């Protein structure tokens, strides 16, 4: 266990040692260097793409970064793409929280009740064996071609992931925390929200953050199967008429959506888990 005080004291000593030893690659490059290399790689990739398109590869197969950029601008300017984005976002904004919440609630319930877990665990594992996107057409039949069938697929994909990770967290929890709290006459509401949920919160956030891309996959698969709007619909239509640039535009929109949602979740996680020691990158020294 490291103390802030002792950490501060050990700083000069360790840097003295480090002076003789070879510095890590990241240290010797510095933050600026790392950023520079990263951007060079990205710019190099896009330049190569731009050059290759029309010279070595048919443009309708890969489009080109500049064309994609202008399609993106055009798409948002005439409002069509904005509408598609909004529809997909709506499907996720309903399906994802409901799925995550139900998954967490059931994982918690399984963790608390051995009876419940013993009865339902094999059933849940069997259900989990179903490739969930294969159920999407069924959801169209049940819930129609509109919003709710996509919400259903998003729900399904988020639910299982959150359920399994929460349940794992419940089983990995240190019994001694519960025993100590119970000795202090803590039970009911306080035991749940002051002990159990904080104890499994790293798992909860892992579940939520890993399920974000899956929620987006769910929405898109639903839209691929049958829809009249949404980014998935936009991608499918664009591909159908070989507007490759627009396909990439759709992909970029989805990518941004995942990144933004993950950043929001990350911010909440950082705040909620500020009690955790920040794990730095592991070092294996020669």
């Amino acid at each position, binding site marked *: 266990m490291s103390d802030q005080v002792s950490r501060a004291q050990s700083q000069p000593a360790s840097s003295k040692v480090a002076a003789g030893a070879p510095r890590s690659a990241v240290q010797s490059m510095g933050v600026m260097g790392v950023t520079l290399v990263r951007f060079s790689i990205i710019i190099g990739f896009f330049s190569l793409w731009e050059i290759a398109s029309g010279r070595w590869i048919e443009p309708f197969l890969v489009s080109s970064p500049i064309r994609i950029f202008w399609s993106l601008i055009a798409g948002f300017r005439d409002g069509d793409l904005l509408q598609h984005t909004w529809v997909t976002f709506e499907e996720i904004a309903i399906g994802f929280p409901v799925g995550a919440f139900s998954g967490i609630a059931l994982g918690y319930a399984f963790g608390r009740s051995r009876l419940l877990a013993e009865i339902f665990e094999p059933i849940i594992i069997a259900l989990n064996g179903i490739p969930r996107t294969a159920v999407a057409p069924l959801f169209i039949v049940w819930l129609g071609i509109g919003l709710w069938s996509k919400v259903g697929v998003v729900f399904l994909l988020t639910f299982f992931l959150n359920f399994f990770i929460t349940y794992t967290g419940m089983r990995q929890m240190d019994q001694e925390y519960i025993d100590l709290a119970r000795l202090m*006459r803590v039970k009911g509401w306080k035991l749940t929200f002051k002990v159990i949920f904080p104890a499994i919160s790293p798992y909860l956030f892992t579940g939520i953050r890993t399920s974000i891309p899956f929620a987006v996959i769910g929405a898109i698969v639903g839209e691929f199967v049958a829809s009249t709007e949404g980014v998935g619909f936009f991608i499918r239509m664009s591909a159908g008429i070989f507007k490759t640039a627009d396909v990439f535009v759709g992909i970029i929109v989805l990518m941004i959506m995942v990144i933004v949602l993950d950043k929001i979740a990350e911010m909440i996680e950082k705040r909620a888990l500020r009690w955790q020691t920040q794990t730095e990158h592991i070092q294996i020294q020669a």
Partner: protein
Amino acid sequence: MPDLAQTSSEPAPSRTEFVIRVENVSKVFHTPGQTNLGALTDIELDVRPGEFVTVVGPSGCGKSTLLKLIAGFSPASAGRILFQGEEVRGLNTEVGYVPQESKLFPWLTVEENVGFGLDSKRFSRADRERQVSQFINLAGLAGFEKYYPSQLSGGMSKRASIVRALAYEPPVILMDEPFGPLDAQTRMVLQDELLKIWEQKRQTIVFVTHDLVEAVALADRVVVMTHRPGKIKDIINVTMARPRNIFEIHRQEGFDEAYGRLWNIFRHELNIGAH
């Protein structure tokens, strides 16, 4: 779970005589595929209110198991444990427990940890704050109230862990080798602090350790346990005057005598182990 809070309102005979009575207690662990593992055999022990009892023995002799039985974490295989005259069935919420590792709740700050057992029914907000700051001061943790356990040193977490158990004032505190992993100096400082706190509060303490000096230095009585299956070999009265000076405990009247008796028992044990 025993509702000791309720039953103690009834007239309880002889409750002042002994807080804890361990009667003929044995504990056997059933391990799958192996023969049953005896952890404790025929343990008889009485603890009086306000007493500081230490339990010493080699590792694996069942010292910790005994504490866990008194706390009601698991049931005895045979015999019974009376707490204030009531048999312990299920968790014994009248005891405080200090585990081997500090086990502070890592998501709560030092002050939230220390105040965790002070429930709102027994303590008003003002009482609670007063109690928490008093115990944080006692533990020498003033200024660290808002720190999280991961930001504390080993000694500091230990202190916080101990006052967390003391703060809600259970009549008995069980301590399971709380100073085990600490270095010698920190240990002594904490032993000294523990005695000072105890001399003010006079809660009953049952303290498990494998360190003979620690056992004698802290205790009114030392319970000596032997190898698995754990049995009580002897109980030694320590007559050293209080308050004691932990830092020069060797020079104190009565230390040598008690330590000598303890060491005799252990020397005997070691000889048996060598053959």
